[in-house]
């Protein structure tokens, strides 16, 4: 499902060059639930962003669903993000001007679907995360856990095969965090391939496989 070969990422700023990822090779099978751990600044987010096509590697090959993306143009990349990938961010990244329902509908705006279909799918996704009673609310009126559940609903509304979660519980207390994890586990049971960055050993243990990064290099 996800394949990385010799992936390298170099950040160049005026003064220094940072090697954020160094020769990463990764193969995630369909239906796997993989967690990524490592100290802060070791390149976890960089790795996840490259998998999620939000960033490009400096070198190496990325394959999503069997398709090599290095020659893809904006429109094709956008299409792939829209079809195959659902992202969950640590800081939620909801659009404050839009209601919960409108936020969840965003991925559906960029594919052909009617307003009614969008609404139905968004409601369904919100039901899955237990928020069907908050559809008309705005992000400011929600707690952190609720916001993250909206973000999950947004990530799954388009029924992507791959869900990428960058410290989805990092801003939440542990009870809330466990609830989010169990939602992810259920999605995984339904067939989604999940890659999750986490700081929490207990959570990592509940996934199928653990990848450890240290200073941009894969150590496990």
């Amino acid at each position, binding site marked *: 499902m996800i394949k990385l070969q010799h992936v390298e990422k170099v950040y160049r700023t005026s003064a220094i060059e940072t090697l954020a990822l160094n020769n990463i090779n990764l193969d995630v099978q369909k239906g796997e639930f993989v967690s990524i751990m490592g100290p802060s600044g070791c390149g976890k987010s960089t790795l996840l*962003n490259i998998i*999620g096509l*939000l*960033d490009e590697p400096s070198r190496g090959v990325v394959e999503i669903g069997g398709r090599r993306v290095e020659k893809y143009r*904006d*429109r094709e990349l*956008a*299409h792939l*993000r*829209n*079809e195959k990938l*659902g*992202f969950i*961010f640590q800081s939620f*990244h*909801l*659009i404050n*001007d*839009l209601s919960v329902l*409108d936020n969840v509908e*965003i*991925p559906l*705006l*960029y*594919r052909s679907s009617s*307003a009614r279909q969008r609404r139905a799918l968004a409601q369904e996704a919100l039901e899955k995360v237990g928020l069907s009673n908050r559809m008309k609310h705005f992000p400011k009126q929600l707690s952190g856990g609720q916001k993250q559940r909206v973000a999950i609903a*947004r990530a799954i509304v*388009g029924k992507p095969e791959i869900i990428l979660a960058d410290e989805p519980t990092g801003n939440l207390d542990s009870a809330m965090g466990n609830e989010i994890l169990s939602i992810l586990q259920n999605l995984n049971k339904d067939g989604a391939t999940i890659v999750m960055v986490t700081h929490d050993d207990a959570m990592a243990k509940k996934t199928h496989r653990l990848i450890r990064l240290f200073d941009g290099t894969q150590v496990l």
Partner: protein
Amino acid sequence: MLTNYLKLAWKVLLRHPFYTFITLFGISLTLTVLMVLTSFLDHLLGPHYPETNRDRSLYIQMMTQTDTAGTTQMKGPMSFRFLTDYVKSLQTPERVSISSVMNSSNAYVGSQKIKLNTKFTDADFWRVMAFDFLEGKPYNEQNIAAGDQVAVISDDFKKEYFGSASEPVVGKTIEIENVHYKVMGVVRGSPVTRFFTHAKVYFPYTAPKSNYQNTGFRGNYIAIVLAKDQSDFKAIQDEFYDRVSRIPVPQYEGGTKYDVLKVMNETYADNFLGTIMEGPGLRAVFLSIVGFIVFMLLGLPAINLVNVNVSRILERASEIGVRKAFGAPVRTLLWQFIIENLFITFIGGGIALVLTVVIIQLINHSGWIAYADLTINLTVFLVSVGVCFVFGILSGVLPALRMSKLKIVDALKG
């Protein structure tokens, strides 16, 4: 999709009331000034009642005589005879009308004095112009040949003189400067800004005091030449200028010998500009001033708008990042911002339209210009809408293009 964008556009407007105010203020003020100005220009120069044939008319209003030494110049309208000899008999036009410039007179109703403008005209005047006759009819060649003491009056004068707007007055007599005239017709008046047609009373040129028999070239008459079509202008001008060039010089008039004779034969707009300023150089200056004003009116707000929009859109970096992360192609996002900007510019355009209508109505009803009939000209409106459109596109595309170059990860960081 579109409704989604409009919904979002509306929310964005509400979220930034200050930006919204500045933007709307700039757009609507600019467009209002532009539309009122053009409407006024159109009122002055366009083909409007009763001069609806202006488009295919040429005006012979100004004769210049220069003496041998080039020190004395006589400028002004011409004698009835000159125009009859050199203009009326032209072969190329459809029709030629000769009429006097405006004269001032007084009439008395009891002891009450009415100030009035009068004009002496030929019968073709009523054919070249498109007056609405509310009553009666114009005088014709027979009236003129017979020297009938008749008049056509304006509806305003009718009310002033007879005290009633509704009662018919055709056949009644008016007395002006101790002469009695029979009223033949009543027309809807022409605005004072149309000095070739504005008057309260029109007389046949054979009526008393018209001076139509004056010899010499100078006088107080002008000619309006109606072409069958604009494409005939050149031929008419050529024919006329050819005739004028054959007039032997030097000539003597008013005790002065002059050897250069120039008579302008121009379109209304050229004639109008020529009356307020002389010389081709000055006209270029005038046009550049107008161009500069229009640029200031349109360009500055446009630049300001683009600036405001750049900061407004950059503020929404994280939203753009999110949309891209979930599959929005750059092109779709560009459209989103263009639609948002068109939305606000068209709201501004709508406000401007309402303001313009209000201002124009105020001018029309203030009595500031008698018979003012300013309208929002369709071309002006369409041009304004077009300007709105370009504003909207420019001010949306530039910042959005900048935005789209931003990488998703950077955009998300805000």
